[in-house]
C-alpha cells in the first residue's frame, strides 16, 4: 500500500513535469512567427557591418508600407538551429557558415526556395556558379547568396619599392622568393617583419584546412563517386610541400612566436596594417578595414599567386559567402520571400550593402552595377569572384567536418610531426570517406 502510494505520487510528479514541458512546447510553438506586418530577420553581422545592413533594410521598409522589418544581429548557427528546433523562428535567417547548407537543405530546416523562384521567374544563373553551389545541397535549393567573401592577395607597396620589387608575385616560387627578400629579422634571429607568413591558422588567409590554397593549385577534394582524392590529386602534396618549405625557412618556432605576438586579425593592429607583414592572402573585407583603420597604408591588391605548373589559374581564388533562407515553421512565407528576393537579387540593394561592408555582391549584374563605389583595391576581388576557376569548398551533410580532418593532418605536417606525406594523405582519404559515410547515413564503411 505504502509503495503503491509513493509510486502514485512519483507518477503524478513525473506526469506534471511532462505536462508542464508539453505545455511549454505548445506555448512556444503558438507564438512562432510574428504579426503579418512585422517580420524579423536574423543576421550574423555586428557593429559597423550590422549598421550597413540595417541601412539596406531601412530602404526596403520605406518602399514596402505593408511590412516592418526587425533586424537582429550577432546571430550564429547555434542560435539558428535552436530557434528552428524550438519552433519559435524568425521569418528570415542568414548564416556566415555556408558549409552548413548541407544540413539545412537536407533536413528541410530551411525551406525549399524553388517554388518561389519559379513563381517569380528568377533564374539562378543570375548568380555566379560558385555562389549557386554553396547555396544548395544535392539539388535542394534552400538558400540564396547574400554577398560573398573572396580571397585575394595584399601587398605592401612601400616595402616592395624598398626591396626593388615592382609587381605582385604570380607564382608560388615568386611568392617564396619575394617572401625571403621582404623578411627582416631581429638580432636574436626572431622575425621582425615577415615577408609572407604561411603558417596554417595564422589569420584567415592561412585556413588550417587549406581551403584558401586549394583553388590556387587547382586541388580537387573528391572524385566523381564522391571519394576523397587528397592522396591521388598531386595538387595537395604540392601545397603542403611548398608551404612546409617556407615554414622551414623561417623556422617553425620563430613563426609560432611571431604569430603569438601578432595582434588579433580583426583589430586595428593587424600585422599587415601596421607593417609587420609585407604580403598576405586575405578576404576582400580587409579593404574596408584598412580604409577605416589605416587609410594612409600604401598597399595593392591582386589575385593570389598560383602553382607554377598552372599559370592559367592566375586570377582565381577561394570564395565563401553568407547564405540567406527561410526557416521551416515560418508564418509569413510570402513576406519573408519578398525580403529574401530583394536582398539577394536587387542590384541596387546588393550594391549599397557591398559599399557599406565591402563584401562582394553576389549577382552577375550587381558586379558591374553603377551603384558600386569605385575602388581600385576592391575591384580586384570582383574580378576574382567572376573568374571561372574560383572555387569554394565542398558542401556535405556534415558541414565542414572533413575540414577538421584535413586540418588535423596539415597542422601536424607543418610542425614536422606527420611523417611520410604520401602515406599520411592516403590515411587521410580513408578517414574522410569514413567520416562522410558516418555523417550522411550513420553507417561505417
Amino acid at each position, binding site marked *: 500500500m505504502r509503495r503503491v502510494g509513493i509510486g502514485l505520487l512519483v507518477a503524478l*510528479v513525473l506526469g506534471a513535469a511532462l505536462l508542464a514541458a508539453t505545455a511549454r512546447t505548445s506555448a512556444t510553438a503558438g507564438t512562432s512567427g510574428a504579426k503579418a506586418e512585422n517580420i524579423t530577420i536574423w543576421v550574423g553581422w555586428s557593429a559597423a557591418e550590422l549598421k550597413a545592413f540595417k541601412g539596406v533594410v531601412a530602404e526596403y521598409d520605406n518602399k514596402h508600407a505593408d511590412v516592418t522589418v526587425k533586424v537582429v544581429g550577432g546571430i550564429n548557427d547555434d542560435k539558428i538551429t535552436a530557434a528552428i528546433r524550438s519552433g519559435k523562428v524568425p521569418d528570415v535567417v542568414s548564416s556566415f557558415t555556408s558549409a552548413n547548407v548541407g544540413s539545412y537543405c537536407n533536413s528541410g530546416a530551411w525551406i525549399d526556395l524553388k517554388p518561389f523562384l519559379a513563381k517569380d521567374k528568377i533564374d539562378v544563373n543570375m548568380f555566379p556558379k560558385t555562389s549557386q553551389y554553396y547555396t544548395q545541397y544535392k539539388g535542394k535549393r534552400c538558400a540564396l547568396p547574400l554577398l560573398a567573401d573572396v580571397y585575394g592577395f595584399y601587398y605592401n607597396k612601400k616595402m616592395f619599392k624598398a626591396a626593388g620589387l615592382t609587381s605582385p608575385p604570380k607564382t608560388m616560387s615568386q611568392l617564396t622568393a619575394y617572401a625571403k627578400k621582404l623578411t627582416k629579422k631581429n638580432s636574436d634571429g626572431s622575425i621582425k617583419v615577415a615577408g609572407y607568413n604561411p603558417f596554417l591558422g595564422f589569420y584567415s588567409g592561412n585556413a588550417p584546412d587549406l581551403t584558401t590554397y586549394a583553388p590556387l593549385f587547382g586541388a580537387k577534394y573528391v572524385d566523381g563517386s564522391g571519394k576523397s582524392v587528397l592522396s591521388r590529386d598531386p595538387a595537395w602534396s604540392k601545397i603542403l610541400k611548398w608551404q612546409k618549405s617556407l615554414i622551414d625557412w623561417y623556422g617553425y618556432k620563430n613563426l609560432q612566436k611571431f604569430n603569438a605576438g601578432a595582434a588579433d586579425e580583426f583589430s586595428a593592429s593587424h600585422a599587415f596594417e601596421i607593417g609587420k607583414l609585407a604580403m598576405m592572402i586575405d578576404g576582400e573585407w580587409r579593404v574596408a578595414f584598412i580604409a577605416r583603420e589605416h587609410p594612409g597604408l600604401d598597399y595593392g591588391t591582386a589575385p593570389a599567386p598560383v602553382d607554377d605548373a598552372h599559370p592559367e589559374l592566375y586570377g582565381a581564388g577561394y570564395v565563401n559567402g553568407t547564405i540567406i533562407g527561410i526557416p521551416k515553421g515560418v508564418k509569413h512565407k510570402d513576406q519573408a520571400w519578398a525580403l529574401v528576393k530583394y536582398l539577394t537579387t536587387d542590384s541596387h540593394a546588393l550594391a549599397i550593402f557591398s559599399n557599406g561592408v565591402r563584401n562582394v555582391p553576389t549577382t552577375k549584374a550587381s558586379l558591374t552595377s553603377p551603384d558600386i563605389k569605385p575602388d581600385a583595391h576592391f575591384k580586384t576581388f570582383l574580378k576574382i569572384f567572376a573568374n571561372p576557376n574560383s572555387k569554394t569548398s565542398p558542401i556535405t551533410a556534415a558541414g565542414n567536418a572533413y575540414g577538421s*580532418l584535413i586540418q588535423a593532418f596539415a*597542422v601536424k605536417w607543418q610542425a614536422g610531426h606527420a611523417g611520410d606525406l604520401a602515406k599520411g594523405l592516403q590515411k587521410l582519404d580513408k578517414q574522410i570517406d569514413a567520416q562522410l559515410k558516418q555523417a550522411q547515413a*550513420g553507417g561505417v564503411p
Partner: protein
Amino acid sequence: MTGLTVRAERSAPLDRTRARRKAAWRRRRLVLLLMTPWLIGFSVFFGYPLVMSVYLSFTHYDLLSSPKWIGTANYRYLFTQDPQVGAAVRNTLWIIAVMVPLQVVFACGVALMLARARRGVGLFRTIFYLPALAPPVAATLAFVYILNPATGPVNILLQHLGINGPLWFQSTSWSKPSLVLLGLWGVGNTMIIFLAAILDVPRHLYESAELDGAGPLQRLRWVTLPTISPVILFSVVIGVIAGLQYFTQAYVAANVASGQASQAGDQTVNNLGYPEDSTLFYPVLLYQHGFRYFNMGYASAMSVMLLVVAFTITLLIIRNSRRWVHYVGAAK
C-alpha cells in the same frame, strides 16, 4: 460485557496502528511534497536527457530532422574509425592524471598553511580563494594573455632573467601544462573544503600524538591526513569527473591562442584543439561533432561512453578508497 471489553481491548491497538500508519503516511507525504521541486528538476533536466541521449546514440540525428535508427553504427565508428577520438582520450587522461593529483596536493598544502596562520587569517583566506570567483572564460583569457610567448609578462620577465621562455599555449608540449597552471590558480573551492576539514580535526588527537612523541610530519601523516581522508576522496572524485568534462578552458584557450577568438559568428574556421589537437579533450570533440557538424547521434554516443567511463572510474575510486579513507566514529 466481557466480550465487549475484549473487543474494545483488541480494537485499541488496531486504532493505534492505524493512527501510526496515518501519521507516517502524512510525514511521507510531506517529505515527498518537499522533494517535489527536486524530483521535477531531476526528471526534466537529468532523467529525461539521459534517457534521450541513450536513445539518440543509436540514431542518426542532425538536430533538425527526425532521428533515424541506425543501431550500433555510432559506437562502431567511435571505437574503430574516428581518427580524433584517440587524441581526445589521451589528452583527457593526461589532464586527469596530472591535474587532479596536483590540485588536491596544492589545495591541501595551501589549506595546511592557512590553518597554521596566526595573523591576517581572513586576508590570506580571501586572497587564496578569490581566483575561484573569476569566471573560467575570463580567467583563461587572462592566462593566454599573461603566457603569450611574445608579448606576455611572464616570458618578458623570464627573458630579463636570461631564460628563453616556453611557447605556452602555442606549443604542443606546453599547452596542457599551461591549462594545469590555470587549474591550480583557481583551486580556491577545494582549498576551502580542505581548510574546513583540517580545522575540524579534533585537538585531542594532536595532543595524544604529541605525548607519544610524534613530530609535525608524523602528526600530518598519522593524524591530519587520515582524519581528512573523506575530503581527499571527495576532491579526487569531483576532480576526476571535472577532468572528464574538461571543456570551457580548453575551448577558450584554443580559440584565443590561435588568434580566432573574434570570429564567433563564423564556424567555418575550426581551431578547437589548437595547437595540433593538443587541447582537444573528449568533451571538446563531443561538442564539435554535436554542435558544429550537426552530428548529434554520434555526439550522444560519445556522451553515453563518457557517462559509463565516469561511473566506472568513480566506482573504482570509491571501492579502492575503503583501504585509505577513515570515517571518524565509523565501525571498522
